[in-house]
């Protein structure tokens, strides 16, 4: 079977291919846009014991998976997914005014990025970023949410600082969901 994943960004092509391979489908081919997706699909093929080969296909790529039995229950990282973790309201600890401005610029830069994180996670004093009075941070986090990022904010921490009612953006969350998000992505960047 042939899957057309042209125009689909990571990790969608991997999810589409994984579903068919895990169902035991044979002669699986998938059309993707670029080398990043090809690399991700090759890693998927290796993990599932269904080696992938690729060839040019017009201005796109055609990735073919070898026939055979699919390894069951293989752990496949959703390649190229990442989460950003703030456990303070600044980048670095020495100079909070500089660190606060760096954190603000980091969130802006993420919001402008073409490859937004799957999650932005706030814990401990980091919760003061989405609950603070910086309109720029709130606006940029909302932009990220529009682009598909999930913003999870530690409820215990909001409660500790007495700022639960001040939260302006994001979902009040807990240790299970925040650690679950970290386990799901292929890397966590702590800022």
């Amino acid at each position, binding site marked *: 079977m042939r899957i057309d994943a042209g125009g689909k960004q990571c990790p969608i092509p991997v999810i589409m291919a994984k579903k068919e391979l895990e169902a035991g489908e044979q002669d699986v081919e998938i059309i993707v846009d670029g080398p990043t997706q090809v690399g991700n699909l090759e890693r998927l093929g290796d993990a599932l014991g269904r080696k992938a080969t690729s060839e040019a296909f017009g201005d796109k790529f055609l990735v073919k998976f070898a026939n055979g039995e699919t390894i069951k229950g293989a752990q496949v990282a959703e390649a190229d997914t990442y989460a950003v973790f703030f456990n303070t309201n600044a980048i670095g600890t020495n100079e909070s*005014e*500089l660190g606060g*401005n760096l954190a*603000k*610029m980091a969130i*802006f*830069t993420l919001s402008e990025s073409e490859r937004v994180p799957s999650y932005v996670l706030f814990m401990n004093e980091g919760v003061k970023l989405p609950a603070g009075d910086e*309109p*720029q941070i709130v606006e940029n986090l909302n932009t990220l949410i529009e682009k598909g990022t999930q913003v999870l904010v530690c409820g215990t921490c909001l409660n500790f600082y007495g700022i639960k009612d001040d939260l302006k953006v994001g979902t009040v969350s807990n240790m299970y969901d925040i650690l679950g998000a970290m386990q799901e992505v292929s890397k966590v960047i702590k800022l």
Partner: protein
Amino acid sequence: MDEYYLLTFESTHAAISTEKLLKPAEVTIMPVPRFISASCGISVRIRPDKKEYAEEIFRENSRLTPDDYAYYHIIRGGAAGEPSCDRLEPIK
């Protein structure tokens, strides 16, 4: 299309203090775009509708001299594709 005015600085302290000074004009900060060079990586971004107000606050209150900063008008994502970036006269 994305249009804004941008202040870049020779020193990080100047950037941080200017952002504070211009807060009433709802400025934001961002990394200096790659197509501009400045000593300090923090720049202050001004919305077109707040340009006059920001300039007024800056003119009346800032201690910076024209050697300390540069002022730009930036348009991104227009029909031409490339960002357009004009260096403006210093505010004061």
